[in-house]
């Protein structure tokens, strides 16, 4: 509210919502190692862009950390074996999105030492910027905040653009999730190394770590641990959903807005999640690839919630057995409850994009079955939309299937499906769902 801007307050963006955080369930749970499942399922498409191409045969033995698939072009990343074992099959596997997709089935040798294949450590200091970018791609790094966009692509700004500032996203605005919080506290050295690498690769002058002010301990910890001679600062931003959305964080920390249809590089920034950079800082000096990630497993349907270092490809069923699934569980969500996706099968594996597994109880789900009333033009969605769309009008247009007008006159393509509008709607209109469908149909029409 502009009215209160005379009072000092945290940096933030316009609009947004304040969902109940539920972070206390796991915020003080240190990252523990998840055991290896008997069999890992490694989808070839865990990232945005082209799927990776397998480089192993069925029946081939692989060592943990060994490349098992290569990148297909620039916007793609390779895969590495998350465990020592044997390739049982390369076949279709269930995914969170619904349709089955090709994956590598890796039978884990339970008796193996699971020591990571260790080549010679590369001389990072001698690498050129282009070589660094290539090394990031070779490590199979993607955005671990949930977007899973190949990290190396963002290191190279388009022609005519320069990256002045690297923004490091430690907001973690989704309810329940605390993995980034733990990473900032426990993997600080690796994080700082990762930031330094990105500063070098992009040629940026400085980096700012943005952290929601519900994690002030992390801000203080970072300020203490970051060497004073580095151009890296940690800044608290307001705890408000979706603070961790790329465009929102850019607005909060720089006051600039990414133009419609543009990239963060257009306003001189590149945004990286803290988890991504901690992995980068850990893996690159050793010349290794991404084979595991930190996942928050939480929610009322879980008996022992916590933060875990989970091998990529671990099936949800195995993961949930380790933490104890309550009898009353109703729905398993990959990611946070706001933007995450409910899975139809527990055979879906944890991929590089999965920051959290949230299990809701059956009684939490009556929300989904509440009666939908007509829009009463209360304007709650208009006040919630972080990109200032008019979800009220968009919703009415969606109900009459006028998808073309939604895109042409009401900026539908700017919607990133954060879910704020549907969250606040007193008439229970599933606005976000409408917009997802509308965008999908518009995409089909274009083709």
């Amino acid at each position: 509210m502009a009215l209160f801007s005379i009072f000092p307050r945290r940096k933030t963006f316009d609009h947004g919502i304040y969902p109940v955080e539920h972070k206390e369930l796991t915020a003080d749970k240190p990252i523990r190692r998840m055991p290896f499942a008997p069999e890992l399922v490694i989808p070839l498409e865990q990232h945005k862009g082209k799927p990776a191409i397998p480089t192993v045969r069925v029946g081939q033995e692989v060592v943990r950390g060994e490349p098992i698939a290569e990148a297909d072009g620039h916007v793609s990343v390779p895969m590495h074996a998350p465990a020592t074992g044997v390739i049982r099959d390369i076949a279709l596997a269930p995914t969170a999105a619904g349709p089955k997709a090709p994956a590598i089935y890796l039978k884990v040798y339970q008796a193996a030492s699971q020591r990571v294949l260790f080549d010679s450590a590369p001389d990072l200091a001698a690498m050129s910027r282009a070589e660094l970018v290539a090394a990031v791609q070779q490590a199979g790094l993607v955005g671990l905040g949930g977007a899973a966009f190949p990290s190396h692509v963002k290191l190279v700004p388009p022609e005519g653009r320069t990256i002045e500032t690297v923004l490091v996203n430690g907001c973690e605005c989704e309810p329940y999730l605390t993995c980034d919080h733990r990473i900032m506290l426990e993997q600080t050295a690796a994080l700082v190394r990762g930031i330094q690498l990105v500063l070098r690769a992009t040629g940026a002058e400085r980096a700012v770590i943005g952290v929601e002010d519900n994690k002030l301990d992390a801000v203080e910890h970072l300020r203490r641990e970051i060497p004073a001679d580095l151009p890296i600062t940690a800044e608290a931003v307001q705890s408000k959903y979706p603070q961790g959305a790329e465009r929102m964080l850019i607005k909060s920390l720089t006051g600039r807005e990414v133009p419609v249809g543009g990239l963060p590089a257009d306003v001189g920034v590149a945004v990286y999640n803290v988890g991504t950079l901690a992995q980068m800082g850990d893996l690159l000096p050793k010349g290794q690839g991404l084979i595991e990630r930190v996942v928050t497993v939480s929610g009322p349907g879980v008996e022992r919630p916590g933060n875990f270092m989970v091998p990529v490809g671990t099936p949800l069923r195995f993961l949930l057995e380790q933490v104890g699934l309550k009898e009353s569980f109703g729905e398993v969500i990959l990611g946070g409850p706001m933007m995450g996706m409910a899975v139809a099968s527990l055979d879906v594996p944890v991929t590089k994009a999965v920051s959290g597994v949230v299990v809701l109880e059956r009684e939490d789900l009556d929300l989904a079955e509440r009666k939908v009333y007509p829009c009463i033009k209360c304007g709650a969605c208009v006040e919630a939309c972080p990109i200032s769309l008019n979800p009220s009008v968009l919703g009415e247009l969606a109900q009459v299937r006028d998808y073309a007008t939604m895109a042409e006159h009401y900026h539908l393509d700017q919607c990133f499906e954060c879910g704020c509008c549907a969250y606040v709607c007193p008439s229970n209109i599933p606005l976000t769902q409408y917009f997802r469908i509308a965008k999908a149909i518009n995409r089909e029409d274009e083709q």
Partner: protein
Amino acid sequence: MRSVVLALLPVSAFAVYQFGLSVLLLLITTTVVAVATEWLFARLSGQGNTVSDWSAVITGLLLGLTLPPGFPLWMAAVAAFVGIALGKALFGGLGYNVMNPALVGRAFVQAAFPVAITTWTPAFAPERFAELIPSTLTLPFMQPVPIDDWVAGLGLDAWSGATPLALQKFQQIELPLSDVFSGTIAGSAGETSAILILVCGLWLAWRRMLDWRIPASVMAGAVLTALPFWLLDPTLYPSPWFVLCSGGLMLGAWFMASDMVASPVTARGAIIYGLFIGVLTVIIRLFGGLVEGVMYAILLANALGPLISGWTQPRVYGAGSRPKA
């Protein structure tokens, strides 16, 4: 929606306590007719059961609260029917009406029955729980019986048959603020107690069932418009506090103007809309032929609502333009 009904209950209870059985029958009539009309039109248009959303109950109760205590029941029924049928169902039902249905109904009977709707009865009449105001049970399509003899029979001193607003406007007699604030005065059934409406409204705003910006800016608009005139000539013009607490301003600001369907969707729009209502109300009261201006001010602002929404729609993130309203 149920919260709004809940918030209106204390106001309704006070109205019944103050004016007696007649108001009880009045509120029941408007509510029942409003709900029945809603049910009928939802059926005719194949919308299923829309009564369960409680919006028709709110319209009925609100309408009853804006009518004079002795208003003939058949006229009240007409108002409720017209409010829901012309003010709401014709536009497509809940969410599509341009104006507040209760006020559409009231505007209709204001035009149709100008005498009945300006016939006031004294508050706290001694036998109010034992007998009805004679005009209440007027037969349909008949003129209400004059109530002068009945009022005279009550044996009240100093009853002029005028509301505080009329006294001020035509005789420059300003009743004590404590009376208009607490509501021990004549007027429409539910508009008299400013304090009660304020408390119930604040509760709703706290529950986020109404946008506080609207009543706040209505009151600000009214006070700021009335202030210069009062400073100029306090004997001729009412004080801003009197303006705020008298007539239907409080009820209008908290429960009518704040109708979500008929008000702008943006925060800035809500403030412009509220100020417009406040300013226009005072202009009508001070310089118009009518004693009270809240109803027409809100209806006019309702009509402007979509336009205000369009003007105040914020700019889309990263875009040079704003989406259409």
